[in-house]
């Protein structure tokens, strides 16, 4: 066991931190207030290799390990959680399944530009009636000659209104239930595809979350991703990696809120001394720091486990569960340390507080993580 980051990992972290401080921090509050999708940041992240970090160089990616990805995600999310999730979806939920389940033609045509950040991806699994119960897909795909025809509706799709390429899950044989699901690569230019609406959300307001409709969308047979019947496995294995991304996002939000609260407690004076001199505040700092560190170690362990090539579902679920609940705790305490100032939009902690909450919900709620963890624990 060793707890040192490698030279390369440190370099990536520093590069991500410099980039985030320079380009994202100055505009993060404005992106949030205006609900503006940060096109210019996404473009720059593409140029830095952040949009396909784990994709091999021959497919347009940066060819880095999962720990590097977790580090970069944390740094970007520390500045802006919306930028973090845009990056996470493209990396974990789109590039990864394309590389893992796609054929070379699909990798050439779709993975390469996605990994280079020239195109943006979205992952379409959730439906109005299929949230935690993701197997209950009602979107259908029927073969008509050599094209698939997709019909249905998808819900809460991150990047949905800005994506060029979408991974869409649909039922090819409803009688087979979750064994009758397939994954498809759909282009946003396809006829019959439309964005019904964008959600108005409490946080991650610069990231778009859309409801999408597929109305007789024709998808060429060579854009089937993996095999017919393999879709649920594609979906679940993809989410395992996604959870490391979201754990890292939660970590970034926590780190930002914690650091802001730490500095504020040293500067803010009440009763004639810095509030950091009061034990009530000191204990908050201690609890925040401890949970932040535990979340970071769980997240890095999950990233490391994925890099080792074995199963890592439980590690990823634990990291996501713990890091998101820690983020909730830490951002809430940060607002509390700031008092009235924390409730105002003049300081960033209120944004961190709103952003943190989503990490307990998407890519599997905390309840879904507990289902994964307990199922694996009870099988041992």
């Amino acid at each position, binding site marked *: 066991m060793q707890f040192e980051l490698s030279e390369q990992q440190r370099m990536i972290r520093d590069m991500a931190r410099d980039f985030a401080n320079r380009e994202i921090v100055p505009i993060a509050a404005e992106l949030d207030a205006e609900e503006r999708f940060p096109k210019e940041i996404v473009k720059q992240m593409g140029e830095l290799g952040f949009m396909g970090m784990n994709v091999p160089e021959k497919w347009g990616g940066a060819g880095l390990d999962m720990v590097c990805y977790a580090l970069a995600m944390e740094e970007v999310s520390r500045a802006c959680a919306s930028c973090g999730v845009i990056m996470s979806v493209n990396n974990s939920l789109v590039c990864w399944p394309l590389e893992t389940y796609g054929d070379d033609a699909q990798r050439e045509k779709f993975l390469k530009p996605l990994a280079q950040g020239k195109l943006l991806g979205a992952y379409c699994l*959730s439906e109005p009636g299929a949230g935690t119960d993701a197997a209950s897909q009602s979107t259908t795909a029927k073969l008509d000659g050599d094209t698939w025809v997709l019909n249905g509706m998808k819900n809460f799709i991150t990047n949905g209104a800005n994506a060029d390429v979408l991974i869409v899950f649909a039922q090819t044989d409803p009688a087979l239930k979750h064994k009758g699901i397939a994954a498809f690569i759909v282009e946003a230019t396809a006829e019959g595809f439309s964005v019904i609406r964008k959600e108005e*959300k409490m946080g991650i307001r610069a990231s778009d979350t859309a409801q999408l409709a597929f109305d007789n969308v024709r998808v060429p047979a060579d854009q089937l991703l993996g095999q017919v019947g393999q879709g649920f496995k594609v979906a679940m294995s993809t989410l395992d990696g996604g959870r490391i991304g979201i754990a890292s996002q939660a970590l970034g939000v926590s780190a930002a809120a914690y650091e802001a609260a730490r500095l504020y407690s040293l500067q803010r004076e009440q009763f004639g001394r810095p509030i950091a001199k009061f034990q009530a505040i000191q204990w908050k700092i201690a609890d925040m720091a401890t949970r932040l560190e535990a979340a970071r170690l769980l997240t890095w362990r999950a990233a490391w486990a994925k890099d080792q090539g074995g199963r890592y579902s439980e590690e990823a679920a634990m990291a996501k569960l713990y890091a998101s609940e820690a983020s909730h705790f830490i951002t809430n305490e940060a607002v509390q340390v700031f008092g009235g100032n924390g409730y105002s939009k003049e300081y960033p902690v209120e944004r961190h507080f709103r952003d943190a909450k989503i990490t307990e919900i998407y890519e599997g709620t905390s309840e879904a993580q507990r289902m994964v963890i307990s199922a694996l624990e009870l099988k041992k």
Partner: protein
Amino acid sequence: MILNENQKMIRQMARDFAASKLAPIAAEIDRSGEFPETTVKEMGALGFLGLAVPEAYGGVDSDITSYALVVEEISRVCGSHGLTVAAHNSLGCWPIAHLGSDAQKQAWLPGAATGEHLLSFGLTEAGAGSDAGGTRTTAVRDGDQWVLNGTKMWITNSHYAGAIVITAKTDLEAEGSRGISAFVVPTDTPGFTVEKKEDKLGMRASDTAPLTLEDVRLPADALLGEEGGGFKYFMMTLDGGRISIAAVALGLAVGAFDTARVYAQERHQFGRPIASFQAIEFMLADMATQIEAARQLTYEACRLKDVGESFGHMAAMAKLHASETAMFVTDRAIQILGGYGYTTEYPAERFYRDAKLCTIGEGTSEIQRMVIGRHVLTD
């Protein structure tokens, strides 16, 4: 606690008003941040703005329990309205009604009771938050006038107030919390400015603003109560204010709980209502239990105040527990609603943002623990 007929009646009146007038606009005013002048005036017509005003001055002069019930019912639908009513009654009207001269009462209470104007309380400053004794605003005698200078922060209802009770240091030599006095300052006094409204996490339709006092000249009779009594007065006022925030928090928790309870029974996953899963059922059980405990603490603080017993520690316990319960319950409500809970389509996320104010305003949870800690250690 068993409610009497009067209390049940006023609760029903507030519940009906909230359902018919506030439910249709609550999400919209949260989004726009616009102060709801029309419905606030309507609350005046119903008597909700004169609950702390004696009948002789046009008020309802209700018991505190009835007042808390009104605040709870309104907050159950809209936290911003709840906070507006709470601050007006307990921080604006109460000190004038209980400490003011007849002339002060005559001047400000009748208009406050009808909602012609609101009343407000200016205590907090940039450097005097939890340490409210650290007041820097000064009031200096000049002949038979007082001249006030300083700034105040986070003052609720200030843009709509006819007058604001302002605390200021009158004995500049006195240390700490000593030498503070309170003044009734008409908001149209030259040199008195209500600055731009704050942009907040929640309670977005309630009016919160900083104040600037620049050579504000007041007649001698603007002094509230006795010179030097300021610290005692604001501590008394805040004791009552804490019951108000407890009632706001309770209302928010109940509103979020109702939303989650209904949703859990309607939403199906894995072929059955999610309420049939033990994980969700237990969440609802914990939420209901915490709410009931918060309600009992709040009503008990009301009862003690109504019968004239010492109630400060109970108000602090009620405020602490109810506001932390509001955070817990509104958070669990979002969690039960899942993705929908994170959107503005459902009220859970608004209740959650509003609830956070309750752990901060009128004494943070940390201050409540100080009050409670001192009480249990000296009892």
